[in-house]
């Protein structure tokens, strides 16, 4: 159902590198689950509204009042790579 190319395409969308050994089992396992899940295609759901959230949340908003932000030291503490100003990443332009 799902082939190697599709696995690689979806992995690229998900920003997930897969090793060569992971590709074939992934294709097989995804296919098995999707085959199982396909049973819902047989249900008559013509006039059924979708439910995304069981709880209707109506207008829970926050007042526009500033609260102190966090210190740079606190937020940079867990960064894999940072200088004194902020988070460092490989440049997207590189």
């Amino acid at each position: 159902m799902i082939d190697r190319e599709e696995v690689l395409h979806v992995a690229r969308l998900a920003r997930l590198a897969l090793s060569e050994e992971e590709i074939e089992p992934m294709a097989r396992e995804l296919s098995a689950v999707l085959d199982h899940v396909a049973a819902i295609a047989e249900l008559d759901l013509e006039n059924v509204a979708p439910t995304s959230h069981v709880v209707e949340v109506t207008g829970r908003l926050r007042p526009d009042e500033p609260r102190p932000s966090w210190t740079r030291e606190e937020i940079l503490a867990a960064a894999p790579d940072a200088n004194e100003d902020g988070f460092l990443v490989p440049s997207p332009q590189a």
Partner: protein
Amino acid sequence: MSSDLLELTAAQAAGRIAAGELSAAALFAFYRERAAADRAGGEDGLNCFTWVAEGAAADAPAGSLGGVPLAVKDLFCTRGVPSQSGSRILEGYEPPYTATAVERLREAGAPLLAKTNQDEFAMGSSNENSAYGPVRNPWDRSRVPGGSSGGSAAAVAAGLAPWALGTDTGGSIRQPAALCGIVGLKPTYGSVSRYGMIAFASSLDQAGPLTRDVRDAALMLAQMVGQDSCDATSLQFPGEIGVPSAERLDGVRLGVPAELSGEGIEAGVKEAFDRSLEQAAALGAELLDVSLPHAPHALSAYYVLAPAECSSNLARFDGVRYGIRAEGAADLLDMYTRTRHDGFGPEVKRRIMLGTYALSSGYYDAYYGRAQRVRTKIAEDFAAAFEQVDFILTPTAPTVAFALGEKTGDPLAMYLNDYCTVPMSLAGIPAISIPCGLSGGLPVGLQLAGAAFSENKLLDAAHALERALAFDGSPAHV
């Protein structure tokens, strides 16, 4: 004194502390030592914990929970304490803030004892998907404790913690509670703040207690519910959670859905379930057949919706602001893809892939759109059933605890563990699992589900059944 302390439920311990018969510090030290020994035990332990407090309790204000220490599932953010959600990608991550549920319990007098092992990002039903090793079932160390709150369930069952906090997305509190012979409650969606819970599937995730008995579950839940300004989906619980005291079920109508109590349920589980129904009838309950016609499709809908939400929720783990980053990346894309490759385990990758696929253009309507509609039908099924009955009864899990490694090679077989618990998750309704007997020396769980916000009545009914069932098994490994 030690074995005496072990006998106490959390409510009893809180009572002793309040009466001045027991010091909170002594209770904390007692459990801290037990938890630390399990953590130090390596292969000989149960591997319930990913972190255990050092020394005395961080001060918990005296409150109604009286200083009874709390074990907390790893995915709750706890300030300055590792919160890794069972994942390599968050190895060593110490958040700068604490989850609302944990904070409320601390303020009510339950200090943080330990963080418990879990399936990575709460994805799993056996706790074998943890990056920090599997948890073992205290009833039989060769078996799984269930998941994803496996560390919390095993710790309570083995007396390594008086009680524990877990989360339930498709059964992650109820199923491990069942497999470990304890009580586990998933509250109504929205009744407990999700702020600070590392998200798996946001429209389903809900925090709840894992405890020795129903009264403890009520005691903990009472301090957790309520609106939180940090979680816009949290709701004000109507009224307060009281102490359950019912001893009879006179006039209570209990519905048994054939869809969730027949096919696929192991014989020993079925026998224990049927005996529970007899007990319920003896307590005065009226037993009725109800139908949940779409319940057999719940698992399919769930395994579209939950992975779809997880693929989006886990996009933030990119190696930029926290967690690990793959070394030596050639460029930004390489940094992303290799960090996520190295940081996520096989089941998490599978679900990210599944969810990304289900949300991708061309498949969205066929999978995600349809699954959302199935969800509507399932909620309607429950609403119709609750016109006829007060509660629905099912076995919590189709089997008792299975052997480590037995189902790891077959994701679908693993997913079937959630067959009886997922429908309630999709409907957002409260459900509790209580131990109802043994099958082959292993505990069986009985699930009671009620309408949204019926927690007080649900706890009362569970309390009456718990007394009548008088489950008194105790695990080998305590």
